[in-house]
């Protein structure tokens, strides 16, 4: 994308007025998407964006500027701007020498990879197949929206510590959302498949199966009764979303919240914060999961980080800035949405390791409760630890058996309390993709878990 000598000159310019650290992040992103809705291919869309974000750290202050101009002149102008804003922030000034950049790490793509095109016709074929399959599931399915999206993102990071790294990340996604109509009104069902790979995703994922799942979810809820209100045991299906750990503790283990004492997990490394059945890992290297990358957006190799081991808190997640203050090595968790954003501490693929129990047995041994087959999104207040997560497919458990379907509801709990209430974990592990939002930035993440039981969670339904 940019030659090393140019990057070296840009970094020198960024530190000319003082500062301890400078970084250039270059990105070239192509996106392609198609939507089939109401039986028609409504919209094909393509986008292209490239540019660089430059940050300069002076004392406690980070100066940041970005530009869509990747010429040397454009980069030098952005470097001067980042340097000026770092100074006007009032941080200390100290000149440092920038040495030559080291050898490149990660997996920089070819110098000019072709823009993301793929075959539009092939993508549309997937959407038509999904639409047909969803409508064939039942006459009550009245509306289907199928969406395909692909993106290729080439990044290059260089910093004044001599780091030079790159990555080429291709992501592909297919989602289906259905509406079914019954006597009690409309209901919805949704399913998505998303991986860090190209069109070869569809050698593994069948659009028909995906659409069938979404349609059956909407149909099942037509006869659903209102979810219970109050505290009940809850069994979460393996791969039902994994969002539980993302919200109950993942965000609270991000070092930026820890540094500001804005997390219930601050100062608790070495303490038992969860049931001994809980071993939680964040790992950006797992196969082609949605949160996988060769390097993070600060150029650090992705790695496997054990956060909770047998219920004991072992570590937090770190980006460069927070790690520097603690005098330690970043954990490969510095991520940003685009070159127009500053990096911050983010999860990659966060998952609970599988346990010894049998999924069917867990249900059979639950006399009364709620079984959640699929979760929607969630949200947490890291300071109080209170979090919610929503169901999009759930059933009542009566006498150890799944009985009636339930309408959608949110569940609410407090992170450290809920993590202690896990009393069974099965071996049927699966990952799901998601989009994580923080401070206005969205990044792709993976979540994973096997079937597990919580001894009590508050369910926000409308039934008394």
């Amino acid at each position, binding site marked *: 994308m940019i030659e090393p000598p140019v990057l070296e000159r840009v970094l020198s310019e960024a530190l000319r007025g003082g500062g301890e650290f400078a970084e250039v992040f270059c990105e070239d992103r192509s996106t392609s998407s198609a939507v089939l809705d109401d039986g028609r*291919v409504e919209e094909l869309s*393509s986008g292209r964006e490239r540019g660089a974000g430059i940050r300069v750290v002076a004392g406690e202050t980070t100066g940041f500027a970005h530009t869509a101009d990747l010429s040397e002149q454009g980069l030098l102008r952005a470097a001067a701007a980042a340097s000026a804003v770092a100074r006007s922030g009032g941080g200390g000034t100290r000149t440092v020498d920038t040495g030559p950049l080291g050898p490149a790490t990660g997996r920089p793509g070819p110098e000019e990879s072709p823009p993301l095109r793929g075959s539009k016709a092939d993508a549309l074929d997937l959407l038509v197949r999904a639409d047909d399959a969803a409508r064939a599931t039942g006459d009550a399915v009245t509306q289907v929206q199928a969406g395909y999206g692909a993106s290729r993102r080439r990044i290059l990071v260089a910093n004044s510590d001599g780091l030079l790294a790159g990555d080429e990340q291709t992501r592909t996604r297919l989602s289906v959302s259905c509406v079914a109509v019954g006597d009690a009104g409309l209901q919805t069902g949704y399913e998505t498949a998303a991986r860090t790979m190209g069109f070869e995703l569809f050698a593994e994922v069948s659009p028909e199966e995906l659409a069938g799942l979404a349609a059956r979810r909407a149909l099942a809820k037509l006869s659903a009764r209102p979810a219970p209100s109050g505290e009940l045991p809850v069994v979460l299906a393996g791969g039902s979303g994994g969002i539980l750990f993302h919200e109950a503790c993942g965000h609270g283990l991000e070092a930026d919240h820890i540094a500001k004492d*804005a997390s219930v997990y601050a100062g608790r490394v070495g303490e038992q914060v969860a049931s001994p059945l809980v071993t939680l890992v964040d790992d950006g290297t797992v196969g082609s999961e949605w949160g996988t990358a060769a390097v993070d957006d600060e150029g650090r190799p992705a790695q496997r980080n054990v956060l909770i081991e047998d219920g004991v808190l072992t570590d937090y997640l770190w980006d460069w800035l927070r790690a520097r203050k603690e005098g330690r090595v970043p954990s490969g968790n510095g991520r940003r949405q685009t070159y127009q954003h500053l990096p911050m501490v983010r999860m990659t693929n966060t998952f609970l390791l599988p346990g010894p129990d049998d999924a069917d047995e867990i249900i059979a041994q639950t006399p009364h409760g709620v079984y959640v087959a699929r979760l929607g999104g969630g949200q947490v207040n890291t300071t109080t630890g209170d979090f919610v997560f*929503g169901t999009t497919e759930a059933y009542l458990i009566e006498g150890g058996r799944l009985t009636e379907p339930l309408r959608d*509801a*949110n569940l609410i709990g407090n992170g450290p309390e809920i993590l202690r209430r896990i009393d069974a974990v099965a071996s049927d592990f699966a990952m799901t993709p998601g989009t994580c939002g923080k401070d206005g930035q969205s990044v792709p993440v993976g979540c994973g878990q096997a079937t597990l039981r919580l001894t009590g969670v508050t369910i926000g339904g409308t039934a008394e």
Partner: protein
Amino acid sequence: MTAAPTRGEGGGSGPDDLVALAERVAGWSRPGEDVEVYVARGTETEVRAYSGEVESLSSATSAGIGIRVVVDHRLGFAWAGSLDEAVLGETLDEARDNASFATPDDHVDLAVPDGVPAAAVDLWDEALAGVPTEDKVALALALEAQARGADPRIRQVDAADYGDGAVEMALVSTTGIRAASRRTSAYLSVGVIAGDGEASQTGGGFSVGRGVGDLDSDRATEDAVSRAVRLLGARKGPSGRTTVVFDRRMATTLLSVVSAALSGEAVEKGRSFFAGRIGEQVGTAGLTLVDDPTDLRAYGASAYDAEGLACRRNVLVDSGVLRGFLYDTVSASRAGTSSTGSAVRGGFAGTPGPGCRALTLAPGPEGYDEDGVLAAVGEGLFVQSMTGVHSGVNPVSGDFSVGAEGLLVRDGRLAEPVREITVASTLQRMLQALVAVGADVEWLPGIAAGQTVAVGDMQVSGT
């Protein structure tokens, strides 16, 4: 239909160079093809203060183009985050190529001028561009210091931000649309953590305006601090059916959720619980909903919609009776009606669709504010924050279930704080159970106004 060009707007000159650029690109259209070119350019600054110092300062400019091409009722779209000469042609070619794959649909066409004049909506603060960076830094630092010192129970100010932006846009099409507008915005935003022994609670506050002169740091601080401090000692609340009072900020969120079901596109595609109910009583007599982006006080005020038609006042629900939906050109054609000038889009990388910009409830009796609504309700729950709105509210089925924090209402006043509870109903029932609407209208950031509302018969889950 006449192709009278719409142009300019009150309060100064528009971005003439952007209009010229959009006209030039639209001029590259081929016979038999309609082209719409949307170009935008912006600058922004953001300062975050922490612990008496500047934590980060960002300064940026950006520009981009979004092109829609319609050939034989087939639509294609492409965008680019650049206005470089080489990029413009590539983007048009890509949009053209995309159009060739779409399913022909008689309802798909670009907007044509409809003769409705654009309101004079001045959203530009001339002084903003001249504010030195040092002054912006000083505002963020002062906000942080003010929040830190506001109450002895504030143990942390985890974010104190100043931000501003200026955006100019132009939209030109071969169907006769020619619109230009520009807007500035500025905000102060602060998040605090209050501590009382072991327990911590959080609160946030902000102040927004078109320029620095509109900002009120006292108000932002007071809001953040009182929200955090009054929750100290909160416990999980009791379960049961009760009346819920939503504060002004939460009411904005509620209206935004309801607005999704008022989209003509959602209605036409069978994704709204309002579909087929025009003329029916969908709410109490106190429910009158109007979307009026020509109201200058609205955060989402705008002269033009995202297809270049004039924004206008649309009455959606009148005294509880459903009267209409919001349409863009395509959804209106599908419904056999005309656009209500309600197209919105998420910048140059998004395509237009119908949506609200300035939804508001007709206010209750004069002087009816938060205290008045609480007094009228007597017993219930006051909600000051909600979580999981994206995961627990379904605008298609109407199911509503959210996490909440707030205070119990007893004898018409705020009593003990509660947390870790959920509040649930359906949107359909909530509209029929609207028991009070305040007159305390406040235009908050977003697509709807804030005013205290009370909804009866909601299920609260707690202990």
